[in-house]
Each structure stands twice: as structure tokens, then as C-alpha cells.
């Protein structure tokens, strides 16, 4: 399985990581006002990557904090407006992966799979990019509507870590935006990319993991079945993988028809949506 290259991703220049006033042109922070949203955006990432700072710089300091249904894990929501569209931002629990049965990982996984966000922002700590990419790749197996936020660029610079974000963009197949959320640098580019992915004007071609040997054939066979049953499902391979691993949640989603609703919802979304790529 080789890495597919993305078809079209807008290129943008590196934001200047230097002192200066960040520009938030066109952004209206809505704080806790998340009524009448046009798009839902999920915020995912490892712990300690500046996820909350990104959240605050997008929505303002006020946030609506509740609990995830049936869980004791806090759920923060906020809103922002950009280009006459309203976005609802949902902060997912910070996790290192989506594979384990821990409550946090289940919440993050379920929301990306069943919550159908129009875009998922994956915040990574640029100084330890490799470690953070593990979660990134797992998210890209579930959704193709994602933007990578290369955060903590200033620290990376201080530590002498340089990242070729264009190269990364073509490898991952999603927009990659360098940011310093603390100072607001790059946040405007991030919003633009999020809006583009959400309204379908940016078409992504996410990286899919490969190279897991013999098992790949079983995954492919099952994925083909899943795809035939749910045409247009963007993550048939991931669903197949979870089924082969015996993931009870996904089994229930199949048996209970939840997955079917999911596909229907995908089909109702605006042009450019879905994983037909």
C-alpha cells in the first residue's frame, strides 16, 4: 500500500513566527454562543500540545463546559464566525491514540466517527512531531476532513527543529498550518483551512496506513463488504479494522443501524463532502 498524493490543496506561505500583531481579519469569536451553527468542528490532539490555547484563540475565553453524555469527562464547546458561516467548535479529550478502550479515547473516537464533524483540527506539538503523528494517522483513518495544526512553532524554532510543512502536507494529504496559538500566529490561516475543508472547497486525500502484512488482505476483503453495504462511507477500511479487532462499539453501530444513519447524513452534506475522492 503506497501513500496516495493529495489532488488539490491550496498552498499558503509560512506565517512569520516573529513578534508582531496577529491578524484575525474576518473572525468573530462567539464564545458560548453556538446556536444555529453551519459547521461542526472537532478539536483533537495529544495532551500538552496547546489544544486549549487554540480553542481559546478561536472562540474567545468563554466556553461552554458540560459533560460528555453519560461520562464524567468534561466537554467544552465554543463558537466562532468566519466568512458569514457559523462554526461550532467541540474540544475532544486530549489523547495519545484512539485504539485503546479508555474513556477519553472512546469519546474522541466516537465523536469523530458518529458526531460527523465537518472538519477535525488535529493540534500537534511540532517539537515532538513524530510522536504526535501517531494520533494524526489514526484520525485520518476515521475521517478525511481534517486540518493539521502544527502548534508550538516558536518552541520548535528555539529547539532547532525545522518542519517542511508543504512536504508534510503532501504526505498527509490534508492542509498543514504552522501556528503559535499563544500569540495568535497562523490562527487565521487555520480558520481559512478549516472553512475550506468544511465547505468542501479544499479536497483532502488523507494518508492511509499500510504495510501491516498478511492481515491487510483480510482488512481489504472486509472493507469491500462494508463499502458495498454502506456506499460512500469514508472510513470503510477503518471500520473493517475495528471489526477484525472485535471492537464492540463498532459492532453495535453496525448491528444497530447507527452506521447506516451516518452514511445517510454524509450524503446529505454539501458538495465536496464524503470520501469519494
Amino acid at each position, binding site marked *: 500500500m503506497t501513500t496516495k498524493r493529495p489532488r488539490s490543496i491550496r498552498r499558503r506561505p509560512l506565517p512569520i513566527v516573529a513578534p508582531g500583531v496577529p491578524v484575525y481579519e474576518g473572525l468573530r469569536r462567539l464564545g458560548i454562543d453556538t446556536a444555529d451553527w453551519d459547521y461542526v468542528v472537532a478539536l483533537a490532539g495529544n495532551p500538552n500540545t496547546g489544544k486549549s490555547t487554540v480553542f481559546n484563540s478561536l472562540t474567545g475565553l468563554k466556553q461552554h463546559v458540560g459533560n460528555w453524555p453519560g461520562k464524567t469527562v468534561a466537554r467544552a464547546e465554543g463558537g466562532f464566525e468566519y466568512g458569514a458561516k457559523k462554526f461550532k467548535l467541540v474540544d475532544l479529550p486530549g489523547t495519545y491514540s484512539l485504539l485503546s478502550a*479508555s474513556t477519553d479515547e472512546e469519546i474522541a473516537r466516537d465523536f469523530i466517527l458518529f458526531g460527523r464533524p465537518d472538519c477535525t483540527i488535529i493540534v500537534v506539538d511540532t517539537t515532538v512531531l513524530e510522536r504526535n503523528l501517531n494520533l494524526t*494517522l489514526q484520525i485520518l483513518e476515521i475521517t478525511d476532513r481534517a486540518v493539521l495544526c502544527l502548534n508550538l512553532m516558536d518552541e520548535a524554532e528555539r529547539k532547532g*527543529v525545522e518542519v517542511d510543512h508543504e*512536504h508534510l502536507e503532501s504526505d*498527509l494529504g490534508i492542509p498543514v498550518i504552522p501556528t503559535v496559538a499563544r500569540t495568535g500566529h497562523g490562527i487565521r490561516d487555520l480558520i481559512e483551512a478549516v472553512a475550506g475543508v468544511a465547505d468542501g472547497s479544499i479536497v483532502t486525500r488523507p494518508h492511509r496506513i499500510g504495510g501491516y502484512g498478511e492481515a491487510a488482505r483480510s482488512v481489504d476483503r472486509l472493507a469491500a463488504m462494508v463499502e458495498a*453495504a454502506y456506499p460512500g462511507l469514508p472510513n470503510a477500511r477503518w471500520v473493517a479494522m475495528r471489526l477484525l479487532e472485535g471492537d464492540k462499539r463498532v459492532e453495535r453501530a453496525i448491528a444497530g443501524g447507527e452506521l447506516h444513519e451516518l452514511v445517510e447524513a454524509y450524503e446529505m452534506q454539501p458538495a465536496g463532502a464524503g470520501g469519494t475522492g
Partner: protein
Amino acid sequence: MATNAPPTAGDILESAESLRRGLDVSFRDEIVGAIYEDATAIARAAVRTGRRAEPTWDAKLDRILTSRIWGIPIMLLGLAAVFWITIVGANYPSQAIATVLFGLEDVAVGLFDSLGAPWWLTGFLWRGVYRGLAWVVAVMLPPMAIFFPLFTILENLGYLPRAAFNMDWLFKRVGAHGKQALTMSMGFGCNAAGVIACRVIDSPRERLIAILTNNFVPCNGRFPTLILLGIVFVSAAFPPSVSTFAAAGSVLAVVVVGVLFTLLVSWALSRTVLKGEASSFTLELPPYRRPNVGQILYTSLIDRTLFVLYRAVIMAAPAGGVIWLLSNVFVGGDSLAALVSGSLDPLGRAVGLDGVILLAYIIAIPANEIVVPTILMTYTGAGMMIEIDSLTELQALLVGEQGWTLLTAVSLMLFSLLHNPCSTTIWTIYKETGSAKWTTIGALMPLAIAFIVCFLVAQGARLFL
């Protein structure tokens, strides 16, 4: 699948089931491996580390400390060094403290006698309550005052997460959560704290396993007992040149046995009553830190030494009183202590101990710290006056007067390691699990294991030696 009608949900689940059977158990590992491989490849292609191309010193250190080959041997050596320093250092202050404290007892008794106080009051207060306190301080304080700062240094350096990292694969292998390596490490400090620390494990099944097995590593309260036994018995059985090393080795061996039992019982639980798969997790190694001397002294001496000592002392005072009463209330010519320990004696002998030791364990349920002092008080309590102002004389008492052997010491070490948790830990298990059933299992399972293991060791030793 090139069928005409789209497959139904049932079809998919069925195929998944049958395909899964054809898959290796390592399927999950293969996927995780593929993710890591891709992540590495992508990161390598995009990241350039200019100024700092070579690995930093802490990365190099981590590579050695958490290496597959060296990680565990280094860990064991480090622990052995800590025990050895404690053992070598503990004897001298012990002697001084004992001389002062027991001297004070005689002075006080003399004073009470000259004031014409009734014998039972003098006896209860000074030969009972005070002597219990004195024993605890003399016997427990020196090893604690040396062991805790050393342990705290390891902790402050950031070594404990690395130790947990070295062991997490073992826990996964036995069907438990890798984080149990962490909660087990906490248990070395205090089992009640270790049980609370099990909250970091999300899966209820794995959390319960970690809670039920936390007791199998010796806590701060039990370490001094083990170290003391190592000094008094194991070192005495070897020539002086290697005696301290042998003593340190024996304490280390007990710790290793404890870890093995943790793994064994976890394995048994996850195969029987708590069946299930191990879930994976990521352990982020915190940076190494320069230990802060002030903080180490504070944590180890105030938080740990004084805390443990305080707990031991408030338990020892009533225990001392109880022992004095047991030794001085006579029923039909025998003291109560003699009657109770006599009736426990056959059971004690069968497991390599004796009735007095079992009696001490019953009295010491509130705090394991006072087991050895309780044993000593019961032996010496019935009017028998022996001045013990050094650990060598302690050995003379136990070996000479009470017929202890190396087997007694080994059995006692094993029993101390494996027996039921102290009442604080039992209460904590109840609060954490909210289940009387699991609390009972958590208390009785270790006790049963302790009896079985000690019985087998004692019978085996008598058979072959």
C-alpha cells in the same frame, strides 16, 4: 465481495468473525506497528533538526535505563544498592537510640517505684505502653531515616516512571494494564496510596486486578521489617565480609518475589474471574530533574519517616498496653499471651513461624510497622528482663532464647510480604471498589496465599534440609 445484493449487517459481522479467526493474535500489534512506521517515515521526511542533530544526554540516558537488555538489571542493581546502604547504616543509630530509650524506661520505673505507685500501673504504663513506643522508635526509625531519603532521591530524579516503563510489557503479558507497573511502584511507598493510584487505570477489569494485587509489594511500613530481618538473620548466616551484601540481596529477593506474585496473581485473575484483553496506553517519560535537597529531606523525613513513625507510634502505644495485659493477666497459671500464642503455635509452626508471630500479626493488623516490636515485646514481656541495645543482641534473643532459625526469618519475610493488607489499605480498597465482595477478596486472598506459600516453603525446607 462481488455479490449483487449489498451485504447485510449480519453478513458483515459474520465475515468479521470468521476472518478474525484466521488472523494472528499479533494483528493489533501489526497495525500499531504500521502506524508507528508511517509516522516515523513521514516525520523523517518533513523534519530537520538543525542545531541539535545528535541525541540529547537525557535521550541517551533513557536509552540505557529503559533498554530491553539493561533496563531491568540496572533497576535491580539500583534497588540493591539502596538496600545495602540502608542495612550498613542502620545498625549504629539503632544501638544509640535503644540505649537512651530503654535507659529512660528503667529510670521511670525506678521513679514510679519510689513514689509507691501500684505495680500494675507502672507495668502497664512503662513496661507496656512506653516499651511498645520505644521498640517502634528504636527498631524502625534508623532504617526509615536512611531508606526514605534514598528512595525519595530515586523518585525525584524521575526514575520511577522509567522503572514502570521497564516492567509494563510484563503486565501486558499477563493480561493486566501496563499502568499497573506504575501503581505497583506507588505501592512500594504505601499500599493504600497505590490502591488510590489505580484510578489512573480506566478499564474497570484491569483496575480491579491492580487494586487486588497492590498488596504484594512491600510498603514503607513493611520495608523496615524486611531490612531488619535481613540484618539480624541473613547477614548473620554469612561470613562478615559478605554479610551486608547477603542481607541486601535477601531484601531484594523478597521484592522480586513480590513482583512475581503480583504478576502471577494478575495473570490468574485475568484468566479466571476477571477475564479480558489488556488495553494499550502511552507512557510519557517526564524529563529528568535535578533533585532538590531541601525537598528530598522534607519529603523523606517529614512526609514519610515521621508519618510512618507517627502511625506506628499511635498503634504501638495501645498495642504495647495490650501486650502487657496479655502477658500479665494469668488464667490458670498461664498468661493470656501464652494461652493465645500457644493455641496458635501449631498453625504457626506448620508455616515456619510460631504462635507469637501470628499473635503479633493479629495485633498489628492496624499497622504492619509494629510487627517486629510486637513480637519482641511478647517474647520479653512476661517478666523476662533482657537488655537489648544492639541488633546483635536482638539476634541472640531470637535465636538463642526463642529458637529462631534462618527458616523462621525467611518465612517471616515471605509472610510479611504476602499477608493481608493493613486495615487502612483494606478500608481504601472498600472505598475505591465500593464492593464488600472485592474488599473481602482483597483482604483474604493475600492471607491465604501467604499461608500456602509459607507452608510449602517450611515443609519443603524441613524435607530437604
